[in-house]
């Protein structure tokens, strides 16, 4: 083989490698997959999506958790119009399904956010209020929800948004041919929905279009969680006049969804390059007033070049900046970093049982619903073992060292954003290896054969298989750190198959209760409803630990019961549940996260405070303005 040939071969291998690096990242790093549960109650999030805030000071000379502003104002005269450019930092390209009913991945939700419009607004506690395009009322007596669309709310093609558009959104999801993942128990709760889904009825009995602007939806039962954004009411509209002619099974691929989607948001879609960029133009007839900007250009930026793009001032706003690189963009001139608590937390889960499919009798009637079945002989079934593992790891240090203080140790499965329900005073599991050793000794996990590794109380060897996701620069060191920490207290933990797993195959195996997995590290996006039933209830498929106890059932029931309309009583139950949960510890909540949004100083005002009035400058997209033709670089 001549040398010339050899080198040209090397060159082409290198080219393939770079290409692969690009798609490899796409799969592993920034994926945030939204799954099943109808409204945005819960989603699996990829490891480095956001970060954590902190009130809790960590010990010693560690990096303190970082505090952020949620609002920035830059002084200066607003220029006329202008184009705002948004860099959306992600390694997984958006699929470009511009429909709330049909999309699955979080990237789609982000690009949709600029044009689709908000039907139901929410306040700082993520409770539905009247700040959206419709007002909302829940009647406990009659189990009905009434939504009334405000005047002058128009679709981008000039047609008014009608009550029947909300009904249409329900009809798409409930349609027998529906291809998406949004059909859930929340929607089946609507009177007549199941009959419609099975094709037995032509319309949904419980949905009544009262007049052009008002719709009434009757539920079989209502709970307090329905007052919460994403808590069970499908608060979205789909343009009936625009999509009606398309069979539901073909909607997902229709050009009306993919290429020329319409919404009632402040900007309308001008051009879409799938996976790469979207340009939006101002929608002059927006019901809250014409936007001040002329255009918004959104482009996706790979995580690896995000910081470089920021240094070159390529975009005005960066969405989804990677937090493990925070120290690199902390002080870039021309930008202000805003931050909020992410609606997510990282956790380590213990496999404690398995999912059992529904049992039916001969006629196909469900005798026993599908549910989580707890296995008291599971390897991790001893609560002492779980607690000891929690004490053995130093999450305060992980947050401050690996995430520069942008994440901090979690002390509860309820995130601090839900301030009414979050049990702030719970201690959780601070780093205490002595305590871990003590618990293990007491529980009978002792090293009987002198190899430095503890055996089970029955004297059998104990090897715990740990599944974790790849992705992000720090995924590997953190997993190594955890395993080494456990080894220091005498527990032998091995990586499942000896490697980290790609996001999708990781969740596939965790979901399928792969018997090889004993513990796993995952992350939950909690959505805007604090109720933990969707993640830890007996009938929740997302309860990946398969943990189910009667006491837990009782507390869950209390938290979702109608009595819970009494918020104080409900908060009490939430705290009781958190105490019980943190003692039982089916998962170790490890880190709370914070999400950072760098904003260029030529943006007049920008505000990411949850629940702020959309007419306040900087909150609603239509209020954004620029104060200079060129991006600030200092």
């Amino acid at each position, binding site marked *: 083989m001549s040398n010339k040939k050899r080198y040209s071969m090397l060159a082409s291998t290198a080219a393939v490698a770079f290409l692969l690096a690009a798609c490899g990242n796409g799969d592993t790093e920034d994926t945030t997959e939204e799954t099943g549960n109808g409204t945005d109650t819960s989603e699996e999030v990829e490891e480095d999506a956001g970060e954590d805030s902190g009130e809790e000071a960590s010990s010693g000379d560690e990096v303190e958790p970082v505090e952020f502003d949620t609002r920035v104002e830059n002084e200066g005269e607003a220029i006329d119009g202008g184009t705002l450019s948004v860099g959306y930092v992600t390694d997984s390209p958006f699929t470009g399904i511009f429909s709330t009913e049909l999309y699955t991945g979080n990237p789609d939700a982000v690009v949709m956010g600029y044009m689709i419009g908000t039907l139901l607004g929410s306040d700082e506690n993520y409770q539905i209020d009247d700040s959206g395009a419709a007002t909302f009322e829940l009647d406990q007596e009659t189990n009905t929800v009434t939504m009334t669309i405000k005047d002058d709310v128009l679709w981008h093609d000039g047609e008014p948004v009608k009550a029947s558009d909300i009904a249409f959104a329900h009809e798409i999801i409930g349609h027998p041919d529906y291809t998406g993942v949004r059909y859930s128990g929340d929607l089946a709760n609507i009177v007549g929905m199941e009959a419609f889904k099975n094709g037995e009825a032509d319309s949904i009995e419980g949905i009544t279009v009262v007049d052009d602007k008002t719709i009434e939806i009757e539920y079989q039962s209502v709970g307090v969680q329905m007052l919460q954004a994403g808590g069970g009411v499908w608060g979205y509209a789909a343009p009936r006049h625009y999509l009606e002619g398309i069979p539901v099974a073909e909607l997902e691929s229709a050009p009306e969804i993919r290429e020329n989607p319409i919404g009632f948001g402040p900007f309308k879609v001008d051009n879409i390059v799938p996976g790469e960029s979207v340009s939006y133009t101002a929608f002059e007839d927006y019901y809250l007033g014409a936007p001040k900007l002329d255009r918004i250009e959104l482009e996706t930026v790979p995580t690896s070049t995000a910081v470089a793009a920021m240094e070159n001032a390529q975009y005005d706003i960066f969405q989804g900046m990677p937090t493990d690189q925070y120290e690199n963009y902390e002080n870039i001139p021309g930008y202000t970093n805003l931050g909020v608590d992410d609606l997510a937390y990282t956790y380590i889960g213990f496999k404690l049982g398995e999912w059992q499919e529904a049992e039916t009798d001969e006629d196909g009637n469900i005798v026993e619903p599908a549910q989580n079945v707890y296995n008291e002989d599971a390897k991790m079934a001893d609560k002492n073992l779980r607690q000891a593992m929690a004490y053995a790891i130093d999450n305060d240090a992980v947050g401050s060292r690996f995430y520069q203080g942008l994440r901090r140790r979690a002390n509860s499965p309820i995130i601090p954003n839900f301030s009414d329900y979050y049990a702030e005073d719970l201690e959780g599991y601070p780093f205490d290896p002595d305590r871990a050793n003590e618990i293990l000794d007491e529980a009978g996990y002792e090293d009987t054969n002198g190899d430095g590794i503890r055996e089970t109380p029955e004297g059998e060897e104990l090897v715990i298989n740990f599944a974790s996701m790849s992705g992000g620069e720090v995924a590997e*060191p953190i997993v190594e750190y955890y395993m080494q920490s456990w080894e220091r207290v005498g527990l032998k933990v091995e990586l499942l198959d000896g490697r980290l797993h790609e996001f999708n195959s990781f969740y596939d195996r965790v979901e399928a209760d792969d018997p090889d997995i004993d513990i796993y590290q995952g992350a939950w996006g909690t959505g805007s409803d604090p109720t933990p039933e969707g993640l830890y209830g007996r009938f929740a498929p997302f309860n990946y630990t398969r943990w189910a106890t009667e006491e837990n059932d009782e507390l869950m029931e209390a938290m979702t019961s109608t009595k819970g309309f009494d918020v104080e009583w409900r908060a009490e139950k939430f705290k009781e549940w958190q105490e019980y949960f943190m003692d039982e510890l089916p998962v170790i909540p490890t880190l709370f996260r914070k999400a950072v949004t760098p904003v260029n100083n030529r943006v007049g005002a920008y505000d990411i405070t949850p629940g702020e009035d959309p007419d306040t400058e900087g909150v609603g997209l239509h209020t954004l303005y620029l104060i200079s033709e060129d991006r600030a670089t200092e």
Partner: protein
Amino acid sequence: MATNQDADAVVSDDMAASAPPMGIKVIAREFMRDKLALVSLILLIVILATVFIWSFIIDQDVVTTVSLWDSYLPPMSMSEDPMFEGTRYILGTDSAGRDIFGLLLIGARNSLTLGWTVTVVSSAIGIVVGILAAYYAGIVDNVIMRIIDFIMIMPQLMIIIIFTTIVPNYNVFTFAAILILFSWHGQARFIRGRALTVGRLDFISASKTMGTPSLIIMLREMMPNISSLIIVNLTLNFAGSIGLETGLSYLGFGLPTGTPSLGTLVSYATNPDILENKAWVWLPASTLILVLVLCINYVGRALQRAADAKQRLG
């Protein structure tokens, strides 16, 4: 008689000049003529000796222990972790506070061992298959070559990556096996080409007519005639295997998590910040790969020339 004696002398002189210099002498002479190759050889031996001896002295468990306090310490700094008090990091640390120097030594050892194993095993398979195909020719050759053609048209890098993600119990041995699976055919094809020409030579035909067993012909008569090519090919492929392993590790599909490798060290450079500001993390490993591969190539080329009389310098 004087003339005759002269003629004899001329003849014997001629004999001395035309008797081909053999084996090690040719190689030694080739290296003496090519200073670059000589320097490469010495450097290569020094590096290999250092890596293999030193990496067995240091404790891999200590090197791979994550220390949260020590991440990204610049070269020559002292550990800030109470657990490692008094440790000095000659080449600094990576994101998880692991000693780059230790990782470099162990990583180099792993990468070299793996590269060498893969090269030797795949060459062995290649030689056997190649000589078999060349010796029997006809239908055997045809079948073997079609199989090789089939393997060759597959996108090998992609398939290796897929294999590494689907095999259960992924470890160093399965990784090596996967690499071997996709690298023997190149050797087989190359050896077959050379062996074919040798197989057509008269002495092979003579040997066959005399009834020498096929195995003896292949091992004792054909193989020695292509042995120089085998050595050259082995050397050059060694560089290729190191490149393949580090490349895969760089992409995250190489050696299992927790096994240090040159590729994993280089892959830190995918982060622009590390590339720009923390060169101590990736620069030593990159330099080592560059030096190793260049050395091997220069040595290999010298060997190649030694094996081919037309190209010899000396």
